[in-house]
């Protein structure tokens, strides 16, 4: 088969620790990247701007969150609020006359700063209590945004994104917006992959698994938890800004509500906690499943296969979506990434069935 482990030997530590030690994986990544770069050439604008683009940005957001939840083990149920802070900051910075590039960094920094503040408040606790604390944070941020018209944009509570250029490219055409999103997704991906294989990531995982054991080997768990909140909030903030500028082109408070936080968590979990490929798969699933289900049910109704009231029709996708999330947790708690991994392993050890005995 195309996956071959035999004959792949590493004679240097450098190659053994590279990102994709298996050549077949490496090839896949290059092919996918090439396909992504060429997408505007072969993809209709509907798919490019309604599916590919939001998928990339949400994947970046899910990656930021999986860095915090999966790698560092800090549960966060208010990540949409972090993204909101990024989105609103970036727009206000651009409106204040600064270049977009600065606005992106500013968005990251404000989100990171406020994210850290909340992180610090919750650092004494973990697990469920962190869930609750971050949930409260989501409400607080929402309340502030809604109640300060200067942030949310006056009576209409909407801010249109101004026209901007990024590295001298005007961000107007579908393609330019798409490449912006792609670039961001690639950066976040590389960052998370590299964090996971270097000492920073190991320290985060250590703090996640056993914070007292981590501290005795010299890891300051307080500092690393904060760093995790900082890094991931930074990435989340920038993702929020990218989402606002490249996709919505307007921000309203509802775009970053509590249910969005839940969706982000669902992306991370359905994809597979801590997995990079999982973030992509999970984001795709959570983003597309409701859309796909809605379209499918609507199609079935139009064809006359499904004759129920329009009310029930509209709620079937919701039920199915809830059921799918439950189904994933019940049948593959390790997420889509695990399913992918199983398939890959199958090919890796092919023609044998077990990798261990």
């Amino acid at each position, binding site marked *: 088969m195309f996956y071959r482990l035999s004959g792949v030997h590493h004679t240097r530590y450098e190659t053994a620790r590279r990102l994709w030690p298996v050549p077949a994986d490496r090839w896949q990544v290059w092919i996918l990247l090439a396909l992504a770069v060429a997408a505007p050439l072969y993809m209709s604008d509907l798919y490019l701007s309604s599916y590919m683009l939001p998928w990339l940005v949400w994947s970046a957001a899910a990656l930021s969150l999986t860095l915090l939840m999966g790698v560092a083990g800090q549960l966060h149920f208010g990540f949409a609020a972090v993204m909101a802070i990024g989105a609103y900051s970036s727009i206000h910075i651009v409106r204040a006359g600064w270049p977009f590039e600065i606005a992106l960094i500013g968005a990251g920094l404000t989100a990171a700063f406020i994210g850290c503040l909340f992180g610090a408040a919750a650092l004494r606790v973990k697990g*469920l209590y962190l869930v*609750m604390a971050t949930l409260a944070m989501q409400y607080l941020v929402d309340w502030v945004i809604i109640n300060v018209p200067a942030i949310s944009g006056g009576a209409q509570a909407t801010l249109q994104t101004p026209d901007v250029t990024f590295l001298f490219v005007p961000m107007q055409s579908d393609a330019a917006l798409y490449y912006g999103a792609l670039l961001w997704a690639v950066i976040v991906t590389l960052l998370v992959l590299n964090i996971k294989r270097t000492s920073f990531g190991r320290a985060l995982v250590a703090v996640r698994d056993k914070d007292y054991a981590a501290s005795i080997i010299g890891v300051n768990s307080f500092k690393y938890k904060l760093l995790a909140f900082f890094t991931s909030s930074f990435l989340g903030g920038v993702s929020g800004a990218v989402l606002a500028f490249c996709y919505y082109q307007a921000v309203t408070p509802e775009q970053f509500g509590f249910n969005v936080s839940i969706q982000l*968590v669902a992306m991370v979990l359905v994809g597979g906690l801590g997995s990079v490929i999982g973030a992509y798969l999970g984001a795709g699933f959570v983003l597309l499943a409701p859309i796909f289900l809605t379209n499918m049910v609507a199609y079935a109704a139009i064809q006359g296969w499904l004759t129920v009231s329009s009310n029930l029709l509209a709620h079937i996708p919701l039920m199915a979506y809830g059921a799918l999330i439950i189904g994933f947790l019940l049948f593959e708690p390790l997420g889509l990434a695990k399913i992918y991994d199983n398939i890959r392993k199958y090919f890796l050890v092919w023609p044998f069935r077990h990798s261990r005995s």
Partner: protein
Amino acid sequence: MAYFLELLFNGALTGLMYSLTALGIVLIYKSAGVPNLAQGAMVMIGAYVVWMLASMADLPLYAAIALAAVGMFGFGLLAERLLLRKMVGQPIIMIVMLTLGLEIFLRGLGPGLLGASPKSLDLGIPLTPVIIGDVFINRDYLVGGIVAMILVGLSLLFFRTRLGTKLRAVSDDHVSSWSVGISVERAVGISWGLAGISAVAAGTLWGSVQGVDWTLSTLLFPAVAVVILGGLDSIIGVLVAGLIVGILGSVIPGYVDPIVGGGTRDVVTSLIILFTIMIRPHGIFGREDIERV
């Protein structure tokens, strides 16, 4: 002063109304160790079922409530059998997400089958307030408060029984409960069933006030504040924290809202959650995790 007293009383009663939802969360957490974020949706389903039995099957209201309680107990058993049984030993985040998945599912199910537009459910409680001095007390909440106290009392008694002890053991350690012959499945099922019953109570009372629709599921948020403050596994905590959350959530907005010009009750609720977690994560009465290095 009368203003303060009115805020205090109505706040206390509202708090007890929140306790009705919170009680379900605690009942489940106390025996299954599962933080049930679908409790709000269960309250909604409870209300829908009562409405359905009362207005579609034309049962007398109180018969409908009783029947709904039985039905929701069954629903609880079913939830254990189909969902939670398989989740034993999974990390907490997975279980939290599972209950959120359940909440999404239920939010589709109730309004989908029975109609999304609001239904009215009339308990026949008069609108006129109980007036003491210059203080107006809400009759709906008065009834709710009394029901809440009764349910909390019953739950307290229940956990004193031998079955209750077994349920507490289960929340401590599933595997070792099995090892000494406790049927963990049944224990968890019972706790979900009881939570289903308390959901009917909460759903009926809240539904009569605001109508029955999906927004009943948003009662989750104040209920979460109550359980965090009271302690996730403390039944008496539900009562005390319900009162505190209700009173603070009434008195503070009563004075602050006019100044800031916004509805600050949820801000107060959020801050209660945040401060509890910062100062005493396990809440007023909750048990502390025994963690040894």
